[in-house]
């Protein structure tokens, strides 16, 4: 029993409530928002140490013993996800100080951001499948409002698509939970993992596995269920795009990893083969979509889809190396992808547009910004020695070690195509000459630091770029933690014993 486990859920709730109390003062809201993220990060760091040193931590809420009560479980995968979401939360909260306008702050931007994180953290921590549904809904309702906040036309268009497809996928999730309960009579995931192999009707178990794959697949934006993502993620302010692009789809990936390593391992030959095909198509369609667009954030949105494919590929291999690659990829991708979104926001501030064809001259006038972009873009494409290289290397190695040559080749090819669309942004927005018309007056004169407060946006980006480089140069410790996490996943008996006690 570890009472600290409740903190990643309780802190955002308390902070959101506090921020709501100071609804009228946007200055107070900003301070509370940022300070809350800092406290969350510290609590996650302490918890991380506990899990790393003492193994899986469990909290039986209300002292109702599993499988009767709701259990919170923190294994290494949960902790890695919690840590990266807390880091991104802090980065985004700081970035938002400048990026989010007064109107949105007045309508509760910071409380919503914290509620969103509460939902995300809850989904990472819970050990109960119905409870996970509830956390998904908490996360969804906050994301709905964040997406629609501001009421501009294209935000409403994006929000409608996002809301309807996500409601449908949640209902599928609930239906899957109902089927699981009907088959086993339990909702606790550790207990489910023990009882599912005893179910005689294996066909039904596989059917339910497919229901979960579709439901989480919609949230994770895998092929062919991703169309809502590029249609909505480019509409809200950049800070919100970055949270969504960085964190929300990864919650879907986390849920997929969790259920397809813990619960649905009866018919790996069937379910994981489908996952592998899906992964390949996700990578290819995503990257081709990105190649055909000329709007900064749309390109990035399609790349989210493409990168999800890599993570699913690692999961589909179902080996320690593959899962290690998938987990490392998630961590690296959250850093690189969110950072690119944040950079697109700065570029828009400077050039007044997201359309690549109307941008130009950023390299000449803002070499620091260009460097930051280059670091993140190369990390995304997988250049050594940045974080993406190690992520791709471990996945390629995992693919070769189980002789899955075709999918490995696809993964490498998609890496090249990623580089192609990153160079597209680089050639137009950064290297091309400044366009003759449509450039705002402050372009070239507004400094990144000093006057204009733009540094509030630049500093978080620099911190993340620093993290990308750090992970790139000192990949070994993190890779080892990811490998430990993967081994925990492949050996569910540890998880089950931690939750239910020695069997």
């Amino acid at each position, binding site marked *: 029993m570890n009472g600290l486990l409740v903190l990643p859920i309780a802190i955002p709730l308390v902070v959101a409530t506090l921020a709501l109390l100071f609804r009228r003062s*946007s200055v107070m809201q900003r301070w509370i928002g940022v300070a809350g993220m800092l406290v969350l990060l510290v609590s996650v760091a302490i918890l991380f140490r506990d899990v790393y040193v003492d193994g899986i931590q469990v909290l039986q809420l209300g002292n109702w013993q599993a499988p009767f009560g709701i259990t919170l479980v923190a294994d290494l995968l949960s902790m890695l996800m919690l840590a990266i979401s807390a880091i991104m939360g802090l980065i985004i909260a700081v970035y938002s100080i*400048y990026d989010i*306008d*007064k109107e949105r702050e007045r309508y509760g931007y910071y409380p919503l951001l914290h509620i969103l994180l509460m939902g995300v953290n809850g989904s990472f921590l819970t050990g109960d499948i*119905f409870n996970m*549904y*509830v956390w998904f*809904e908490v996360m*969804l*309702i906050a994301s*709905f*409002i964040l997406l*629609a906040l*501001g*009421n*501009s*036309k*294209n*935000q*409403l*268009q994006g*929000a*409608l*698509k996002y*809301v*309807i497809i996500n*409601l*449908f996928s*949640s*209902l599928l999730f*609930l*239906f899957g*939970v*109902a089927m699981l*309960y*009907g088959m086993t009579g339990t*909702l606790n995931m550790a207990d489910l993992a023990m009882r599912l192999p005893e179910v005689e009707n294996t066909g039904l178990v596989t059917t339910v596995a497919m229901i979960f794959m579709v439901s989480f697949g919609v949230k994770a934006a895998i092929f062919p269920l991703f169309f809502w993502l590029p*249609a909505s993620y*480019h*509409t*809200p*302010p*950049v800070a919100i795009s970055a949270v969504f692009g960085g964190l929300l789809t990864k919650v879907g990936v986390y849920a997929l990893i969790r259920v397809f390593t813990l619960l649905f391992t009866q018919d790996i030959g069937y379910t994981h083969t489908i996952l592998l095909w899906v992964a390949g198509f996700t990578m290819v369609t995503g990257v081709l979509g990105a190649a055909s667009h000329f*709007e900064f*954030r*749309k390109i990035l949105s399609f790349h989210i889809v493409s990168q999800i494919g890599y993570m699913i590929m690692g999961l589909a291999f179902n080996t320690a190396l593959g899962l290690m690659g998938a987990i490392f990829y998630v961590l690296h991708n959250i850093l690189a992808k969110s950072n690119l979104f944040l950079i697109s926001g700065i570029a*828009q*501030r400077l050039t*007044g*547009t*997201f*359309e690549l064809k109307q941008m130009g001259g950023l390299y000449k006038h803002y070499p620091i910004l260009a460097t930051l972009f280059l670091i993140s873009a190369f990390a995304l494409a997988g250049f050594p020695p940045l974080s993406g290289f190690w992520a791709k290397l471990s996945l390629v190695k995992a693919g070769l070690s189980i002789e899955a040559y075709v999918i490995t080749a696809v993964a490498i090819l998609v890496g090249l195509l990623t580089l192609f669309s990153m160079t597209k942004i680089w050639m137009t927005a950064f290297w091309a000459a400044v366009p003759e018309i449509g450039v*705002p007056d*402050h372009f070239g004169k507004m400094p990144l630091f000093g006057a204009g*407060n733009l540094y509030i946006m630049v500093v978080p980006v620099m911190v993340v770029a620093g993290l990308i480089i750090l992970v790139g140069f000192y990949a070994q410790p993190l890779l080892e933690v990811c490998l430990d996490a993967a081994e925990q996943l492949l050996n569910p008996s540890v998880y089950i014993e931690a939750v239910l006690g020695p069997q």
Partner: protein
Amino acid sequence: METILPILAGAIFASGVYLLLRQSVILTIIGIILISNAVNLALFSLGRITTENPPLIASGSVIPELPFANPLPQALILTAIVIGFGLLAFALALAYRSYKELGTVDQDTMLKDAEDTSSAIVTDSENNEKRNA
């Protein structure tokens, strides 16, 4: 009852999917409402739905008197209904607001991508105001 309810749930789900695929946003949302009810019905039919003992533990014993009605699916449905209610209320409000803003409920015309995506972003003059405030 235990055979009728799943069939009913399936039928409602099917009609929900049909409505989901219609052009009007309102019909789509009604489709979601139907599906949500179908899922709740399916959950409901998992508990025993015959007349049985209430799930109360008599003093001195550790389990309720068999056969007892399973209260858990009903608790799940209650949770799901409450959550669904909130989400659907939001979806309807969003649809109404979109209708006001876009002037139509036909999805083909209302969901066409806008060309300029920068309009959601505040202008710099607004930001200067914010800085000075």
